[in-house]
């Protein structure tokens, strides 16, 4: 059973080590003998019905974000939303997370419409939220914590149509106000945490892989891997987050 990952705009949205998230998904499939294929989805590329089991989108600079927003509205947005509703997994980070919501409202200029995967909207904020983050999360499985690094000025507010990925214990999170971090809707995760997210939070990587396999009709549990290094890095990041805040 092969899973196929659509990597949205790898040239435009890849600002904070996003390569690490893709690499983690690929390796953790390979190490379990699950064939995996990553396909770049660039501006103008269409998304065929049922083709992809997972989507990934990273963060970008302002100009790139505008180009991507236009393409999502014109060629991909509705299709991505449909695939996720039909069971595809997704991970959207920073700018990608914002565009997976309802809209992004800048200080000046036009609102950037999102693709409505998450019932969430983002407004420009004056303060830049930068630093290590720790969040408590039910999705984190055994670890119970998610660690990462955030760097954003947008403030994201969740509606009732999605759940937060976790509750912030160190750092700012979605909006520096309500202690929420990220969003979950079905198999889709949005988050401000890069750093890179998946290598140090292997249970999130495995959650996404399971969802993607589920889309192919498999509900077998994933074979376990030796995650001692991953968990050591998770623990080190936890300790560091507490010390640097």
């Amino acid at each position, binding site marked *: 059973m092969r899973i196929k990952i659509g990597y949205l705009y790898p*040239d435009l949205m890849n600002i904070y080590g996003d390569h690490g998230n893709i690499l983690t998904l690929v390796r953790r499939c390979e190490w379990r003998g699950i064939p995996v294929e990553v396909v770049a989805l660039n501006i103008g590329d269409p998304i065929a019905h049922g083709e992809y089991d997972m989507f990934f989108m990273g963060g970008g*600079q302002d100009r790139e974000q505008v180009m991507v927003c236009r393409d999502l509205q014109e060629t991909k947005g509705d299709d991505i939303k449909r695939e996720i509703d039909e069971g595809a997994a997704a991970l959207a980070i920073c700018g990608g997370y914002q565009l997976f919501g309802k809209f992004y409202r800048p200080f000046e200029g036009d609102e950037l419409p999102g693709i409505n995967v998450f019932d969430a909207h983002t407004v420009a904020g004056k303060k830049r939220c930068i630093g290590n983050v720790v969040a408590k999360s039910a999705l984190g499985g055994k670890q119970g914590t998610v660690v990462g690094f955030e760097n954003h000025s947008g403030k994201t507010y969740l509606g009732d149509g999605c759940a937060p990925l976790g509750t912030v214990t160190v750092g700012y999170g979605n909006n520096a106000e309500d202690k929420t971090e990220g969003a979950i809707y079905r198999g889709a995760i949005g988050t401000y945490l890069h750093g890179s997210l998946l290598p140090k939070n292997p249970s999130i990587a495995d959650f996404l892989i399971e969802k993607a396999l589920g889309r192919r009709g498999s509900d077998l549990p994933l074979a376990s891997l030796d995650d001692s290094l991953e968990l*050591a890095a998770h623990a080190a990041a936890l300790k560091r987050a507490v010390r640097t805040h």
Partner: protein
Amino acid sequence: MRTGNRLVLALGKGIGFTSRFLKAGGGSTLPGRTARRMSPSFVPNMVKELPLGSVLVTGTNGKTTTATLLASILDRAGMTPVHNRTGANLLAGIASALIRESDLGGHLAGRMGLFEVDEAAFPAAVEETSPRLVVVNNLFRDQLDRYGELDTLASRMKEAVRTLDPQSVVVLNADDPLVASIGRDLPHEVIYYGIDTDRYGSESMQHAADSKHCAECGSRLTYEYYLFGHMGRYSCPSCGTSRPGSQVSAVELEMVELEGTRCTVKYPGGEVTLFIPLPGLYNVYNVLAAMSCALALGVDIETVKEGIEGFKAAFGRVERVEADGRNILMILAKNPAGFNEVIRTLTGGTGRKNVVLALNDNIADGRDVSWIWDVDFEMLRDRLGRVVCSGIRAADMALRVKYAELGEDSLTVEPNLEKALQEGLAMVEQGETLFVVPTYTAMLTLRGSMVKKGLVAPYWEG
């Protein structure tokens, strides 16, 4: 010299002495920080005392090497630069250099200011030092948590360049599209330098390439070839912007493994062949930058050549040390592009290399370590022997190595830097080389432990 500055100087010098005395780390920024706090006009007043004016060196990678190369040339040319030498390249570092190089009456021993500054501090440095020449070597993604976005950074730098005195000269890397865009429509004299041969070009871009889009119209650039990150021979298919012609150009290159690079450089009025005693393409750019500046400042080509060929690497950037019959080659790597060049250097030569990779996340390194995922460690497959990962984020580095599948069996995690160096040395044979690749503050600690062992001199003596 105003009395105010004299008092500030006396105090600054006192602090510099004390902190060196206490071995607190060379006293490189504390005196300057104090001086600037006591007198905000301290730097603008002091630089007026420099008869030959000031030069600013900036860029994400290689500013210390470029500035030190230029200092080596200017010293030989009798221009006696005051150089903020120890990598303390914020404004406090400039102030400290001015304090160190002057007597209590404010008379400077040097005749020209040679200041390396971070890209983010560049606009402020332009304002405070009124430079006669600025050089921008490259713009890569480096500690975005500190600098904000690259495009924003470039436009701020361009605004600052526009405020320069009309007689000032602007030296820019033609091969970096974002840097080259700073020179477009500028009323000042602009000198471009670059590599004008595809001998070491490649057809694909590294992950660390940052500036893939036209600074004028936002379209994706097309490349005939890439040299180092996003540097290469580019053009924009939409608006027709392309790499500007360079006045100082490396037209022939031959890398001699880890020793250095032989190259032929064309410049206005001639051609010179020289040997660069530092490895890697990135050092070719550093040399071209320093040469362009020196020629613009009126230094003759013989002196330029001597300055480069007789160059001793800036501390820690590339340092060769002998320890118990073993060699240590320490190369600083502080961002993806720089790290990729180090990796490219490591893939040269024969045999498997034993390495210590040291990752810290202090403020000077950048708190965010996600950048290691943009480094192409995969290039090292089948090239490494033993690997020791060290530093505050040793586990993150180990994870990067694991996902690059570089051989988990030969991987050790030792967060303590001194112990990691010991372990590294223990795994190389007599006469062999241990490669040590640290981030900035990890490098300072490692160097500190080498000083303690008497292997190298403390850097404020160097």
